[in-house]
């Protein structure tokens, strides 16, 4: 067999391996957010319980905060929820909840069952605020700086590694920036 006959199968193998690695390394399911560095959209939502304060975009200005998109019908939200309860109890950063396309009574019951770490919750009944935030599916988490600009987006449930190595470091970095800006001005 002439050596040239090996070229097509070799090329095929190279392309197949390259595409397979691309699938593993580039993680095509993780779509980059178009909103990094952009201000959070304008919204003003009621809470899941009419006796509670709702959530508007002005609540995101003044302090570094986390916005967690969740729903009672979302199974992965249940998995990550204990970590948010932990962050809420630590009290270093406000965690706002965006209750995505949920029934308010289901959300209230869910929070009563699993704990409510949220400083305030906005009920996004039709998912329009979710679309304004570029939400693809729940859960998703945003870190918003003191100016109300979105600085980080995490798609899917968080685990301890993502919380401690990605989300909280970003929060601390932005908090340090805020303090630096505060003393400058």
């Amino acid at each position: 067999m002439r050596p040239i006959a090996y070229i097509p199968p070799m090329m095929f193998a190279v392309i197949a391996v390259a595409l397979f690695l691309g699938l593993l390394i580039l993680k095509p399911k993780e779509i980059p957010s178009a909103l990094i560095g952009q201000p959070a959209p304008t919204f003003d939502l009621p809470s899941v319980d009419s006796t509670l304060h709702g959530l508007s975009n002005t609540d995101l200005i003044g302090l570094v905060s986390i916005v967690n998109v969740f729903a009672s019908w979302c199974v992965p939200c249940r998995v990550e929820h204990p970590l948010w309860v932990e962050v809420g109890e630590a009290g270093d950063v406000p965690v706002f909840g965006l209750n995505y396309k949920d029934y308010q009574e289901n959300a209230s019951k869910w929070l009563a069952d699993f704990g409510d770490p949220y400083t305030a919750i906005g009920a996004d009944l039709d998912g329009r605020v979710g679309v304004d935030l570029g939400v693809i599916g729940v859960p998703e988490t945003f870190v918003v700086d003191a100016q109300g600009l979105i600085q980080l987006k995490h798609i899917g449930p968080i685990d301890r590694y993502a919380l401690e190595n990605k989300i909280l470091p970003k929060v601390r970095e932005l908090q340090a920036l805020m303090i630096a800006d505060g003393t400058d001005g």
Partner: protein
Amino acid sequence: MIAVARPWTGVMVAIFVGIVTASSAQVVTEIIDPPLEDPILEARAQTIHKQIRCLVCQNQSIHDSNAGLARDLRIIVRDRVTAGDTNDQAIQFLVDRYGDWILLKPPFKATTIALWLGPILILMLAGWSAWAYFRAASTQVAKAVPLTEEEQRRLAKLLDIEV
């Protein structure tokens, strides 16, 4: 050579079929969203729907997808069109929120140059190498060297003996 290539063909087909089946087949229950009453606006909305990627199932347009988010985006496009947006404005509305990724046809710009020009470049490269290959093959034939004097003498001698 063809006989030798056969086992390779089998492997290639198996891998290809594997890739295709692994990336398809998502079963979602149907949720109906009503079309607009104005057929012209609905036609425009559907033209846009076909250009927008469903972010949940990725390689379907929101026109074809039954996912909840695709339905929400279809309704938003209908709202934008009804509110007087041009097709480009309605598409830009979604790009502002979800990025270029939401477009099934990627825009031509600095970050996508390799995507658009890569195939043309590869085709040109393939064309060039094919041309070079055949040219080399033809020049090899043309380069047949005339016999040296010694060889001609030997040939003449041989022919003489034969005759």
